[in-house]
């Protein structure tokens, strides 16, 4: 077992999905669990074996591809179903299979009472297959297949409880909003094919520096179109609106798809295409600005939401913004690092929230929780770890990854982007501890009925929590700043992002002193650029900021529980603005959805009904009318026919005679 079996990594979950899908609920629960969890577990084992073999290879040879068959062959165009494993893909593969496996295990407990148990695991396995195809694809087309398939699974799983209209609506919304992004992604792929004549990653990225001038409009167009896809999938401004609604899905789904893996596909894609982005400073700057703006914007909304899952959803949007900020300043490895740590602690937070919801018989309102610490000891401990991690407290994983992003933002993006990140970090610490205090601290606001059923979750749910908590605790240690030899993830990803320096070389040669230039220069001279004094100062600042966020949250929600109400009363307008999520949904609805809807109705009435139907029905009606006229000739009186016959004969004879 090893790299030769790479194809099995995505294939096994697909097999599981097919088996559970075909059986369609006929199998007993135990068998469904074994197929569903076992397929991903095996896939994880093979992924680990592949990872070990990849590590054994020399650094510059760490890119292994495995072609399965030719998918599309048309003229010069050829696209294979070909999987590739390189360090970047390996990190993603391990996150997807690892976190995915834990969430599958958790699901056996959480979804234990669910009727459509087989359908759930079939979809979840299908998602794992799609996501692995996305991250292991060797060309844009196969990546797009995975990209669309994860979108489909997201839709299916958000709308899993389709009997509830809200869930069905949310699934539809996610699908439609993602369609906008996919449109951009697809156009980007077309443009790449027109420019390079191929869709293979290695060929495109190798030719890119020659075929695209730095800062050219073509490079910007390709990069920005691809980024539109990433914005849709990764829920960034302005297409983030679907993610909070996606919380209608089952909680493990929110953890796997809408926190840990699928929504990070956009970050992965930008990192994968970093060569194209480095060729377009404009696109890179756009990525950074969108990322920073989203990080800050979503965090402010998260401050006042009352649904535990929605707080986490806005938090996810915000954290994804951090990842894009990292990519936008050229620190792709930092973005991937944060992607990884975020996968750990955000999955843990969602699963912990799921455990709380499970314990409270489905209650999601933070104001109906509180004082759960003694009742849910394991959930409490693990969620605390995750909360500390996302807040960025030393030495939890989030501290290292977030700090590295902020440091890179300072270094290559300037104080404004850094400032946005720091304010976002403060808000993150605040709203996460607000969630923590409201859930576990203070006095209980649990309803009597829910109190009756209050129980710690079964082992199948708490063991994944504990494993994720350990990962959230130590996950940051793969990338320790300042320490020489501490940046192991950077070193591992180095071969993938090494060509960044190559592009920078041409960039400097063309005199493009820009974000791209400086960002890539960082890649070349990362060791030298590190000024330890500044970095330590910034680190201390972000730590102080995070701690003060926690302190404020404590003061608001534990020490003086009336304070939030008083503050909300005092800044009523602002509070309502935040509480209603800046009315973005309403604005979209009235400015975009309704006009399109009304326009469609008008088109339907005026064009479809009047012109198209009018033409079709009109032709039919005219023929009918003409036939009615001609029909008069058919009287049924045989003598009339005879008369006409005679007259005809007379006319013909007359003509012949007088000719």
């Amino acid at each position, binding site marked *: 077992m090893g790299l030769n079996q790479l194809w099995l990594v995505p294939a096994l979950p697909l097999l599981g999905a097919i088996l559970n899908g075909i059986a369609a609920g006929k199998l007993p629960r135990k068998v469904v669990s074994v197929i569903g969890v076992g397929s991903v577990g095996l896939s994880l084992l093979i992924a680990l074996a592949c990872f070990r073999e990849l590590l054994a290879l020399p650094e510059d040879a760490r890119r292994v591809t495995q072609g399965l068959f030719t998918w599309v062959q048309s003229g010069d165009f050829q696209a294979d179903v070909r999987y590739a494993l390189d360090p970047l893909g390996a990190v993603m593969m391990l996150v997807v299979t690892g976190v995915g496996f834990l969430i599958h295990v958790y699901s056996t407990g959480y979804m234990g009472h669910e009727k459509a148990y087989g359908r759930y695991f079939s979809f979840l396995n299908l998602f794992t297959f799609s996501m692995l195809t996305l991250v292991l694809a060797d060309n844009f087309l196969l990546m797009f297949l995975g990209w669309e398939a994860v979108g489909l699974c997201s839709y299916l799983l958000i709308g899993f409880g389709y009997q509830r209209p809200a869930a069905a609506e949310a699934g539809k919304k996610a699908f439609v909003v993602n369609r906008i992004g996919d449109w951009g992604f697809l156009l980007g792929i077309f443009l790449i094919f027109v420019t390079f004549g191929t869709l293979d990653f290695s060929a495109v990225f190798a030719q890119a520096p020659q075929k695209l001038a730095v800062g050219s409009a073509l490079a910007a167009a390709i990069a920005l179109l691809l980024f539109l896809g990433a914005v849709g999938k990764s829920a960034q401004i302005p297409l983030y609106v679907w993610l909070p609604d996606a919380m209608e899905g089952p909680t493990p789904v929110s953890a796997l798809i809408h926190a840990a893996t699928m929504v990070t596909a956009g970050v992965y894609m930008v990192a994968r295409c970093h060569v194209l982005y480095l060729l377009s400073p404009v696109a890179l700057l756009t990525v950074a600005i969108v990322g920073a703006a989203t990080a800050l914007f979503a965090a402010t909304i998260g401050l006042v939401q009352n649904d535990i899952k929605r707080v986490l959803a806005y938090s996810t949007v915000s954290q994804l913004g951090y990842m894009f900020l990292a990519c936008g300043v050229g620190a792709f490895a930092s973005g991937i690092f944060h992607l990884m740590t975020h996968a750990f602690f955000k999955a843990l937070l969602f699963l912990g929230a799921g455990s709380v919801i499970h314990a409270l018989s489905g209650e999601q309102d933070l104001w109906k929780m509180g004082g759960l610490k003694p009742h849910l000891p394991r959930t409490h401990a693990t969620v605390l770890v995750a909360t500390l991690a996302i807040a960025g407290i030393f030495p939890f994983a989030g501290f290292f990854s977030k700090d590295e992003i902020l440091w890179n933002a300072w270094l290559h993006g300037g104080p404004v982007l850094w400032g946005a990140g720091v304010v976002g970090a403060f808000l993150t610490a605040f709203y996460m501890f607000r969630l923590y205090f409201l859930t576990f601290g203070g006095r209980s606001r649990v309803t009597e009925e829910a109190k009756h059923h209050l129980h710690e979750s079964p082992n199948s749910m708490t063991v994944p929590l504990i494993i994720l908590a350990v990962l959230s605790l130590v996950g940051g240690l793969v990338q320790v700043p300042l320490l020489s030899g501490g940046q192991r993830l950077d070193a591992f990803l180095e071969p993938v992002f090494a060509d960044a320096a190559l592009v920078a070389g041409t960039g400097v040669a063309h005199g493009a002193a820009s974000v791209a230039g400086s960002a890539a220069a960082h890649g070349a001279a990362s060791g030298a650029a590190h000024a330890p004094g500044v970095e330590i100062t910034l680190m201390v600042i972000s730590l102080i900021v995070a701690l003060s966020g926690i302190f404020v949250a404590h003061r608001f929600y534990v020490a003086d529980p009336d304070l939030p109400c008083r503050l909300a009363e005092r800044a009523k307008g602002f509070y309502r603005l935040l509480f209603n999520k800046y009315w973005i949904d309403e604005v979209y609805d009235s400015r975009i959805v309704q006009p399109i809807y009304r326009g469609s109705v008008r088109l339907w009435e005026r064009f479809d009904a009047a012109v198209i139907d009018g033409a079709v029905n009109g032709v039919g009606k005219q023929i009918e009318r003409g036939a009615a006229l001609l029909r008069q000739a058919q009287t*049924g009186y*045989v003598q009339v026919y005879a*008369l006409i016959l005679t007259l005809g004969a007379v006319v013909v004879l007359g003509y012949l005679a007088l000719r």
Partner: protein
Amino acid sequence: MTGHGVPLELYQLVAALLFTIGLVGVLVRRSALVIFMSIELMLNAVNLSFVAFSRLHGQMDGQIFVFFVMSVAAAEVAVGLAILVAIFRNRETASVDDVHLLKG
């Protein structure tokens, strides 16, 4: 040359007269029986014409044709009268105006 010094024009005139009487009978009479008889008249007008030309040219083709016409006419009458009887039994009428169901 025709026999007994009767000129061809006279035969043709009689034939045309008979044919026209038959045609008018077909067009104006309502009784199916009379229409049948009128058709016979038209057929015999044509037969007369055939025979006259046959004599004129001294060839037998025309006379043979007349036999064909007569035998076909006999068959037609047999079938036609049978239909007529069937219609009369069903509808108690032999007027063609009452049988005009086949129309648009």
